[in-house]
C-alpha cells in the first residue's frame, strides 16, 4: 500500500473490535477521534478508543425501565462542542445529551414534535446550537438548542425523510433524501419551499453525504442498489458518477483526504463495508469483511485521516478497521475475459505477461491481436491519474476465429434441429429420416444410433427388411447362421476400418488409451475389442449384466445347435460398459469416446439382426437399459439435442425408464438452446411433444396477443373482430375485404395489407397497393 502521507498526531491503533450488548443502529465519533458513541434500540454507550482496544466510558442508558426515548435510530456527536450529542428515537423524539451534566442522567432536552419515527439528526457543522431532524412523518425540523421548541419546520410535501445533511461548505444549505426517491435542497432560512428537488433513485434514498471538499458534490445511496454522485454546482443537477453495488445502500460516507473515495454499507443481506473509487465503479477499492450481520453505521474516525474506519453492526460488535488490513478485491480479480462471438469466434483476453509466450504451446488456428491491431481496436488506454491507486493491468487479446463449418460453429445444431422429424410418421420412418439427416450432416455416430434404435424398437415384422438392407450396405455382415468367432470379429474389424477413415485420428488416441489397460498390440483393433468385452464381463459391471439376464431369460429359447458361438455373441449386450465407463476416466477427449461408442452399437446390430432372423421374441424392453445409458451418455457429452430427440421419438417406449427430473432437465436445456438460436418453431414443437408436466405448461405462459383496432388505434377487446369503440371491423384484407383472422401481412410503407396469399397473388399482377392508395408496395 501507498505510504502514509499525513498522520494526524493522536490517531493510531490497529484493527480491533469489542462486543456490544445489543445490536447497534448508528455510531458517531467525537471531534478529536478519541471516543465513539454507539446507539441502538437497547444500547446507548460511549467507548474510548485506546491504542489496543475499546474501553467503555459511559452508559447513557440509565433508569430501571428505560423509556423509548433511549431507543435510538440515529446518533450524532457534535463536531464543535465535545460534550453535546443528539439522538433520534424510534418513537419520534429528538433528544440532546450533555456529557458535562453532573448527574447520571445526561439527557438535556427532549423534543417530541415529530409524530413518527425520527430517522436522522444532524448538527450544523459550525453552528453550536443548530440541530436538524428528519422524520418518517415527512417533516424536517430545525431546533435551536437554546429554545424549547423547533424554530422552523420544513415540509417535504412528499414521503418520509430518510436522511438530512448540512452542507459542509454552504452555511445555509442542507440536503434531505426521501422515501420516494427524491432529494431536496433547502435553505435553512426559507422553510416555505425547497430550493431544488430532483429524483435521485427509484425507491427510497436511504442516505446522502456531502463531499468534504468539493462544494456541491453530494453522494446518495438508495434501495435500488446504487450510489450516485451528483454535482450541484451547476444550474442543472448532474449525475457525475454512479456505482452499482450488490445490495441496497444504507450508509455512504466520503473518505477523508481521498477525493474520489467513499465508503458504503448495505441495508440487507450483504455484511461487508466497501470503499469505492467512484471513477472505478465496478470493483470496490477495498473491502472490510469482519461483520457477521449487516453493518448499520460507518464513520471515519478522524476528519482528516483516511486510514481508520469505525463501524457498528447488528451482530453487536463495534469495529475499528485499519485501511492497511482491508482486503483488496482488485488483487483477487481475474483480469482474464472469455467470450463467444456471434459466429462462433472466441475472444480471449489475459494479462500480457501470461500471453507473452503463447507460440510454444503450439495452438493452431489462433490469432493474437496485440493492442495495436486495427481490426480489433479494443483498448482505450486511460491516462493514469496520479491520485488513482488502481493497479494498472494491461491485457492482450486473442481471437480464435472459427472456420466455416468447423466444429466450433453450431450449424450442425441448427440444421439438425430443423431437419429432424419428431412426430407425425410411423416410428421406423422417423428413425430412418433422422438417420439420413445425421448422415447428411456428417455425423455418422448419430446416424448409426438412429438406425440402431429403429432396429431395436421396430416391430419385428415389417421394417426388418430395410434394416437388413441398410446394414448390409454399411458392412458386409455375414448373415449365415453358423459363423465362427473369427469371422465375426473380422466383420467387426472391417467396420471399424470404415469408421477409421472418418476419424482416424481419434481412433488412434483411443487405441493408445486402451493400451494402458490391456496388454495387446494396440494396432490390432480386433483383439482389442474382444478383450475389452471379455474383461468387462467379469468386471465391476457384472451386476448390470445380471439384470439383463433376468429380463431376457423367459424369451431365451433359441435353438442351441445352430449357434455354436451364441453365448459369446450374446455377451455383447453388456458391452455398453465402455460407454458408461469412458466418461469417467479423466483423460477422455470427446472424439475418443465417440469412436469407442461405435463399437458396442455395432455389436448390437449384429445381435438384433440375428434375432430378427431366428427369434423375433426379444422384446424391445430388453434394450431399455442400454438406450437409457446411451441417452445419458449423449446428454453428458453435451449433445442434449440427441437425447431429447430420441426421447421424443421413442416416447412411451423409454419414458418410464428415465426419471422425470432428468427428463425435465434435458428438455429445459434443449429448449433453452433452441431459443438461443431463435428456433422458436422447433422449441415449441419440442414443448408440445414433451411429456413432462413442467415442460408442457411452458408454452402456456404469455399467450396473450394484444391487438389494437386498425381504425381507431384503441385496444381491442377479445370478443370478435369488431372494435367496440368505433364499430368497424379491424384488420380487413385489402384484397378480399374480409377480416383477417390468421397471418396478416402489410406493407410498411402504406400500412395496407391482408391475407398473406391474397397479397402474394395480387402482387403478381400489380405493383400498386391493393387498397388503391397508390403506394408502390414492397414486401420483402
Amino acid at each position, binding site marked *: 500500500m501507498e505510504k502514509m502521507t499525513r498522520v494526524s498526531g493522536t490517531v493510531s491503533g490497529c484493527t480491533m473490535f469489542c462486543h456490544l450488548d445489543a445490536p447497534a443502529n448508528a455510531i458517531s465519533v467525537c471531534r478529536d477521534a478519541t471516543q465513539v458513541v454507539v446507539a441502538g*434500540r437497547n444500547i446507548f454507550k460511549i467507548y474510548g478508543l485506546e491504542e489496543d482496544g475499546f474501553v467503555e466510558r459511559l452508559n447513557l442508558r440509565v433508569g430501571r*425501565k*428505560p*423509556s*423509548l*426515548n433511549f*431507543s435510538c*435510530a440515529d446518533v450524532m456527536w457534535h463536531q464543535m462542542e465535545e460534550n453535546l450529542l443528539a439522538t433520534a*428515537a*424510534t*418513537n*419520534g423524539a429528538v433528544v440532546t445529551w450533555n456529557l458535562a451534566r453532573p448527574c447520571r442522567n445526561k439527557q438535556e432536552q427532549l423534543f*417530541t414534535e*415529530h*409524530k*413518527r*419515527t425520527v430517522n436522522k439528526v444532524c448538527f450544523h457543522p459550525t453552528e453550536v446550537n443548530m440541530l436538524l431532524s428528519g422524520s*418518517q412523518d415527512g417533516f424536517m425540523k430545525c431546533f435551536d438548542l437554546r429554545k424549547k421548541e423547533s424554530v422552523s419546520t420544513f415540509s417535504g410535501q412528499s414521503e418520509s425523510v430518510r436522511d438530512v445533511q448540512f452542507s459542509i461548505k454552504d452555511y445555509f444549505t442542507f440536503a434531505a433524501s426521501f*422515501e420516494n426517491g427524491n432529494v431536496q435542497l433547502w435553505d435553512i432560512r426559507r422553510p416555505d419551499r425547497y430550493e431544488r428537488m430532483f429524483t435521485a433513485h427509484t*425507491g*427510497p434514498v*436511504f442516505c446522502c453525504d456531502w463531499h468534504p471538499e468539493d462544494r456541491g458534490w453530494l453522494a446518495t445511496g438508495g*434501495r435500488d442498489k446504487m450510489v450516485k454522485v451528483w454535482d450541484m454546482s451547476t444550474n442543472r443537477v448532474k449525475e457525475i458518477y454512479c456505482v452499482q453495488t450488490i*445490495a*441496497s445502500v444504507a450508509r455512504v460516507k466520503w473518505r477523508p483526504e481521498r477525493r474520489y473515495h467513499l465508503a458504503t454499507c448495505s*441495508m*440487507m*443481506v450483504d*455484511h461487508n463495508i466497501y470503499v469505492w473509487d467512484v471513477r472505478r465503479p465496478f470493483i470496490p477499492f477495498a473491502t472490510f469483511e469482519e461483520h*457477521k*450481520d*449487516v453493518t448499520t453505521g460507518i464513520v471515519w474516525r478522524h476528519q482528516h485521516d483516511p486510514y481508520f474506519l469505525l463501524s457498528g453492526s447488528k451482530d453487536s460488535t463495534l469495529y475499528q478497521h485499519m485501511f492497511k488490513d482491508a482486503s483488496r478485491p482488485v488483487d483477487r480479480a481475474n483480469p482474464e475475459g472469455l467470450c463467444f462471438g456471434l459466429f462462433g469466434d472466441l475472444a480471449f483476453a489475459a494479462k500480457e505477461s501470461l500471453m507473452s509466450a503463447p507460440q510454444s504451446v503450439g495452438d493452431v488456428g489462433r490469432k493474437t491481436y496485440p493492442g495495436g491491431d486495427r481490426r480489433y481496436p479494443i483498448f482505450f488506454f486511460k491516462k493514469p491519474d496520479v491520485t488513482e491507486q488502481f493497479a494498472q493491468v494491461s491485457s492482450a487479446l486473442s481471437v480464435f476465429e472459427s472456420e466455416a463449418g468447423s466444429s466450433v460453429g453450431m450449424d450442425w445444431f441448427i440444421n439438425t434441429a430443423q431437419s429432424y422429424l419428431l412426430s407425425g410418421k410411423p416410428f421406423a420412418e422417423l428413425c430412418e429420416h433422422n438417420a439420413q439427416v445425421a448422415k447428411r450432416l456428417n455425423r455418422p455416430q448419430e446416424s448409426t444410433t438412429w438406425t440402431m434404435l429403429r432396429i431395436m424398437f421396430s416391430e419385428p415384422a415389417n421394417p426388418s427388411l430395410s434394416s437388413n438392407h441398410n446394414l448390409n450396405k454399411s458392412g458386409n455382415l455375414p448373415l449365415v447362421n453358423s459363423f465362427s468367432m473369427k469371422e465375426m470379429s473380422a466383420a467387426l474389424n472391417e467396420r471399424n476400418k470404415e469408421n477409421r477413415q472418418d476419424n482416424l485420428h481419434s481412433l488412434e488416441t483411443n487405441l493408445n488409451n486402451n493400451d494402458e489397460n490391456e496388454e495387446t498390440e494396440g494396432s490390432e483393433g480386433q483383439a482389442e475389442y474382444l478383450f475389452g468385452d471379455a474383461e468387462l464381463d467379469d468386471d465391476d459391471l457384472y451386476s448390470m449384466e445380471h439384470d439383463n439376464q433376468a429380463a431376457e431369460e423367459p424369451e431365451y429359447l433359441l435353438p442351441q445347435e445352430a449357434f455354436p458361438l451364441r453365448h459369446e455373441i450374446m455377451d455383447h449386450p453388456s458391452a455398453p460398459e465402455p460407454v458408461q465407463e469412458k466418461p469417467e476416466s479423466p483423460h477422455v477427449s470427446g472424439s475418443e469416446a465417440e469412436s469407442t461408442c461405435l463399437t458396442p452399437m455395432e455389436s448390437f446390430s449384429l445381435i438384433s439382426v440375428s434375432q430378427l432372423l431366428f427369434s423375433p421374441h426379444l422384446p424391445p424392453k430388453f434394450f431399455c437399459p442400454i438406450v437409457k445409458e446411451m441417452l445419458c451418455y449423449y446428454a453428458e457429452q453435451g449433445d442434449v439435442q440427441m437425447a431429447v430427440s430420441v426421447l421424443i421419438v421413442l416416447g412411451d417406449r423409454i419414458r418410464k425408464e428415465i426419471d422425470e427430473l432428468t427428463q425435465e432437465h434435458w428438455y429445459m436445456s434443449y429448449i433453452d438452446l433452441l431459443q438461443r438460436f431463435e428456433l422458436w418453431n422447433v422449441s415449441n414443437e419440442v414443448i408440445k411433444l414433451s411429456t413432462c*408436466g*413442467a415442460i*408442457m*405448461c411452458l408454452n*402456456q*405462459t*404469455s399467450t*396473450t396477443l*394484444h391487438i389494437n383496432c386498425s381504425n381507431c388505434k384503441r*385496444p381491442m*377487446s*377479445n*370478443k370478435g373482430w369488431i372494435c367496440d369503440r368505433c364499430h368497424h371491423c379491424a384488420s380487413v384484407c385489402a384484397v378480399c375485404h374480409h377480416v383477417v383472422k390468421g397471418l396478416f401481412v402489410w406493407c410498411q410503407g402504406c400500412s395496407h395489407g391482408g391475407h398473406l396469399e391474397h397479397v402474394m397473388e395480387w402482387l403478381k399482377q400489380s405493383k400498386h397497393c391493393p387498397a388503391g392508395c397508390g403506394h408502390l408496395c414492397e414486401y420483402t
Partner: protein
Amino acid sequence: MNGTADICNHCRNMIREKEKGMKMSRHISTGPSSFIPENEIIGAMPLNDSTVMFLDEEFSGRMDNLTQVMGLHPHYLQAFLRCHYYLLRMDGPLPLHYRHYIAIMAAARHQCSTLVCQHVQEFEQIGVCSDWLRGLEFCPQRLRNLNEINKILAHRPWLITKQHIQALVKTGEHSWSLAELVHAVVLLAHFHALASFVFGSGVNPDPEVTEVNGVTDDICPPAMAGLCTCHLTNSNQGNRNPLRNPDTGSELEALMERMKRLLEEREDDDASEEEMFTRFEKEKKESLLVVSAGFDEEVVPPSPVARFVDDPSFGYQDFARHGEDNPPTFKAQDYTWEDHGFSLVNRLYSDIGHLLDDKFRTACDLTYYNMASHEGVDTSMLRRALFNYVHCMYGIRYDDYDYGEVNQLLERNLKVYIKTVTCYPERTTRRMYESYWHQFRHSEKVHVNLLLMEARMQAELLYALRAITHYMT
C-alpha cells in the same frame, strides 16, 4: 335499494332468471357479494382504461365477483391485479401449476371454497398433474413440505423461525431454492389475505367456476356454492334498515369528534414510555377478549376443501395469551417492509417487491376524504389505526404509535369484525359486517377490508421474511 339487499343467493338466482332480459351490463350475472347490494357495485366508479385492458387480457373480459367488489376502488384494483397476475402468470421461479396448487393450499387453510374452486379450475386448465387435485397426499412431497409454514403463516405467523426455513431449503431430494421459497411464501401470504377479503366482503362464488365439470364438480357442488354465509344468518336479520336506526345516528358524529379531539390532544399528550407500552399491551390483551361468540368449539366441517388441508385442528391462537410465556414482540422498526422486506424479496424474486410495495402503498394511502356523508375529512388517522391494530394482534409494535388511539377510534363491534376477518375469516357473518359503522357506505367498508387484507399480508410477510433473513445470516 334495500329490497334486494337482504335476499340470499338462492333467491337471487331465481330473480336473476326473471331479470335476465333487462340486464345491461354484460359481466354481471349475479350479485358479486352477499353483503353488498348488487346495485351499489354496478354503480361504482368506472374503471380506467388500463385496468379494463388488463382485465380483458387476463380474464378475456370476464370479471369475477372478487374483481367486481374490489372494483369499488379502481385505483387499488389496478395495483392488486398487477401483483396478482405477476404472481400467478408471469415469469417466476415456480412453474405455473405449482403456483395454483399453492394458492389452493393457502385458501383451503381458511376453507375458502370460492378461491379454492377458482384455482382448481385454473389448475385444470393447465392440464398437467390433475391427480394432485384429489388431495394433498397425491401431490409431490416437495409441495407437502410447505404445509408446515402454510399453517403457521395462516394462523400464527409469529411462530415461524429460521428452523422452518432451514428444513425447507436444506439440500435433499425435496428441497426448495430460496427464490422458489420466497415465491411460495408470497403466494401463501397473498392468498391467506385474499381469503380474508373474500369472507370479509362476502364475495359470492363465481357461477362460471362452479359450473365446470370434472373434478371441480365434486369439490364445489352447486349446493355448496349457494350456501353462502348470508344464508346462515339471514333468518334473524329481518328487513332492518341501518340508516333508519335511531341510536346510530350520533355514532358517526361521535367518531368524528373523537378524531378531532385526538388530533388536538396529540400536541400536549405527554404520555410516558411506560404508559405507551402499557397501552400497546392493553390493546394486545384486549384483542383476546374480542372473540366472536359461539365458536369456542373447533369443529371443522368435512368440507370437500378439507382434502387440501393438513392438520386441520391447527388454528388461530392469540398472540398474547394469559399467563403464558409470550413470544417477544416484533419491533416494527427493526424489520420494516420498506427497508428490509422489500430488499430481500426483490433480491430473490425480481420485481415482486415493486409490485407489492405499490399495492401496500396504494392501500394505505387510498382516501377519498370522505367519511359517510361528510366530505373533506382527513381519514389517515383512522386508516393507520386499522392497519396498526391488525399488526398489534399479530404482535407487531410501532414505537411511534400511540395505541390509545386504537381504543378511541375503533368501536367494539368493529374490533370483533377486524379480529374475525383477519384471524379466522371463515367465521365472518353478515351480522358482523353490518354491526359496525352503520352509516358508512359499503364502499367504505370494502376499503376497511382492503386495509385489513394488506395489513395481514404485510404482517405475514414480515414474519416469514425475517425468518428467511435470519436463515441467510
